[in-house]
Every structure is written in C-alpha cells, then in structure tokens.
C-alpha cells in the first residue's frame, strides 16, 4: 500500500468537486474493497476521499419504492424490516455475502462497485487485460474454476463478485448518481458493461461521479423471493453459482417472475428470457425450461463448464423454494 493523502470533506458537493479536480483520487467508504486492492498493489490512488461523513445513510420507505442511501451498511440493509419482509431476496443476498464483520463495514454503494476476485486481476505480476488492456488474460489457461461463463470475451472471463448486485438487478434497481455538474438516474443493469475488448471499463460511472442512493421500485415478484448461493464451504466464500429468484402467482399461474444469476456472469446476470418463459405457466416443468433458456448462451472454459449444469439446477431449486414459501 503506497502512501496517499486522505481528505475528509463535510458534504457531498465538496466530495464530488474534490474528486473531479484531483487526479488519481478515489472515494473510500467502508474500505473493504479499496484498502484490499491497495494492499494487492492493484490500486494506488494518490488521494482518498473519505465519504463516510456524508448524509447518505438513510433508508426511505415510500409507497412505490424503497430508497437506500449509498452509505447504508450491508448489515443494515440485510436486517431492515421492510427489506426482510418485502424484498427478501435482497436481505438474503446481503446475508450470503462476505462475513458479519465485513457486512458491518461495507456500504451498498461500494458493494455494487466492487471489483472481481479473479486471482490474476489481483496479482500485479500476472497478465490481465482488465488492469492493462492488451497484456493478455492469464485466467484463460490458468485456474478459472470460479470464473464466468456468461458475458465473457477472449479478453476477460472474470466473474462479477457481488451478491447484492444480483438481487438488485433482479429487482430493477436504479442508481442515483451525482456528478460535478449534473445528477442522473440509471438502471443498475444498464450501468454495468461487458468486458468485450475493454475489460478495464466495468461500468458507466464517469469522472467525479458519486453514487448517492439506490432505489428499488416495488414489484409484484419482489415479495416472494429468495437468494440461493452455492459454494464449496458453508459460508464466507464467493459463489460458484447463485440465483436471485422471485415469483408472483395469479392463482396457480405465474403472473410475474424475476431471475438473476451470480457467480456465472462478468456482470450480474438478469435473464428476462427465462422470466418470460415462466409467465402464465404453472411452475415445475416450466422451471426446467426457464433454466435451460437462462444458460443457453453460456460459454464454458476448460474447467468451469460444470457451472452450466449447476446453475440450471440452482435456478430450479430457487424457484421451487419461492413456490413453497408462498
């Protein structure tokens, strides 16, 4: 971790202005990603802007949406009664991630921006197109059991690491972003970029911009939902595959569905085609069909092909779990 300056602005405007005009500056909130990457030698901002004092930690419960300030802790979102009761996939996704201590440090804003866990990305001595476009990708022929099968390119197969972002994408979450001269809203799903030829570009955040809040609109399939995470050990581990799933039934038939996948995509993977396949069906055999569709375009590598079958089964299991819970 190289030396840096730490600035502690008092308000959001000041924080954004500092970020816009200071070369090599990065925001720090919980620090669980920033400090980690600095220790790896992957990130070396010359200035850190501490945003923890900014008034961005409120959760507003409104009739048509939930608005969560960007600085709300993972643990606070996970245990908020409205989230637990009305957006259970989100509570479960947060609780499935990291450890209790990390959830007490990490913010929702930082969570959606977290970088990949690919060991070649995290090793400055390895070839990584995400760190240096054109250097190559050591993961392609290396250890890539945890890597992505969806949204990949020959330049990058790194998995997106966040659990919460998977649920948020399933819930049609919207980011509120403030910049030096304007504010905007963007759907979280559209915010993320595929690696393509430029894996160094992961999202649409522009210089000086700060995520200030995340909105979750209410939706029919949000209340009966779950997050299923499959991993090699029982806790404190990133996903092999994960599924955020929600269903709303009109009598016996599915009126609305939400499915998003984690552990398999270079970005959190919403699968609308699978959701559409579920509409109007009664479930069970439709779940298998939806799972097929969801993994249709998966591109396995030498050692992670098992994720295709595992993801399909996890989708079916998650949908069954939601159905049983109703």
């Amino acid at each position: 971790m190289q030396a840096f300056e730490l600035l502690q602005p008092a308000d959001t405007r000041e924080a954004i202005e500092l970020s816009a005009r200071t070369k090599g500056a990065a925001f720090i909130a919980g620090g669980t990603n920033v400090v980690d990457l600095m220790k790896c030698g992957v990130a070396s901002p010359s200035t850190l802007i501490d945003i923890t004092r900014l008034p961005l930690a409120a959760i507003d419960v409104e009739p048509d949406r939930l608005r969560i300030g960007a600085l709300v802790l993972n643990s606070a979102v996970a245990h908020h009664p409205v989230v637990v009761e009305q957006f259970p996939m989100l509570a479960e996704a947060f609780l499935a991630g990291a450890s209790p201590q990390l959830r007490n440090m990490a913010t929702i804003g930082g969570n959606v921006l977290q970088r990949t866990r690919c060991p070649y990305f995290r090793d400055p001595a390895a070839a990584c197109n995400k760190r240096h476009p054109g250097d190559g990708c050591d993961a392609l022929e290396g250890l890539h059991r945890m890597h992505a099968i969806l949204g990949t390119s020959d330049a990058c197969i790194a998995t997106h690491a966040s659990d919460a972002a998977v649920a948020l994408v399933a819930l049609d979450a919207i980011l509120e972003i403030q910049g030096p001269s304007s504010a905007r809203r963007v759907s979280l799903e559209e915010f993320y970029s595929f690696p393509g030829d430029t894996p160094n570009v992961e999202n649409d955040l522009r210089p000086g911009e700060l995520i200030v809040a995340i909105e979750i609109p209410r939706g029919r399939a949000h209340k009966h939902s779950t997050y299923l995470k499959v991993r090699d050990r029982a806790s404190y581990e990133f996903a092999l595959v994960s599924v955020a799933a929600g269903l709303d039934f009109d009598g016996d038939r599915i009126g609305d569905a939400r499915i998003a996948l984690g552990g398999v995509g270079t970005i959190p993977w919403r699968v609308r085609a699978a959701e559409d396949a579920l509409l109007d069906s009664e479930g069970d055999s439709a779940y298998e069909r939806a799972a097929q569709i969801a993994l249709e375009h998966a591109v396995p590598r030498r050692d992670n092909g098992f994720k295709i079958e595992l993801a399909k089964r996890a989708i079916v299991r998650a949908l069954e779990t939601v159905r049983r819970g109703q």
Partner: protein
Amino acid sequence: MPQMKLKINGSSHDVELEPNVTLLDALRERIGLVGTKKGCDYGQCGACTVLVDGRRVLACLTLAMMHQGAEITTIEGVASNGSLHPLQQAFIEHDAFQCGFCTAGQIVSALGLLTEGHAHTDGEIREGMSGNLCRCGAYSNILAAVRQEVRRAGV
C-alpha cells in the same frame, strides 16, 4: 504527518499517523495494544476483529484516520478491573481455543454478535461466527461458549 485522537477502550490516545496506517497496525505497532492479531491482513480471517461504536469490524481493512471520534473496543477492553467477562470465562470452561491466536478476534466478534439480535439458534451462532477462522478447529467449543453466554445474557 497528521495528528489524531483515537478513543480505545475508553481512553483517548494521541497519535501521529500516516493516512495509510490501518486501524490494526495503529493499534499494534503505534499504540502498543497487541491483543488484536494480524492473521492475514486482507480481511479474510477475522483475527483482527474489533468493535467500532459497538459494531464488529475488521481492523486490517480500515484506516485508523477514519475512526477519530469513534469508540473503539479491543480485547484489552473486554475484562473489567481484572475480572473476566462471562464470555471469556465461558471460553475457558469450554476450551474454546487451542493455540489462542484467533481467540481475541473470536471473543470480540461474539460480543458484537450478541448485540445484533441474531444468535438464537445454534445455526445462527455458527453462521454468525463464520467470519472468524480457527485452524485449530475449536468451532464446537466456541459454539458451546457463545451459546452459554447467549443464554446467560438472555439475548
């Protein structure tokens, strides 16, 4: 080099620290509170767990400078006036440690867990303590000790 005040276990410490000093290294190398351990320095083992304003966090992944004004509790602040906290006593009774290196982190983490309101069942305690690795494998006894304290404290 910035001057700062850190409030630890009820006492105020004046320290001069570069911004890139983690809370863990500030405690251990600058202030001399070595009870909190460094197991991995990357937030992957939980040995460095401390409480910040009552919340359990990992001291290795946060910067000391960002916690001025916060009430920081380390293992050194758990016993009071030489009397062991009942949880510490429970750890001894149940042999909830072997080499002892992860123990400070386990105890402080358990104290945090007890205030979070989600330690009612064995499953919740196991999951709630899964952020603290123990290579000696004392998990069964850690569970027993924490469970005993949950019952005693009625949380």
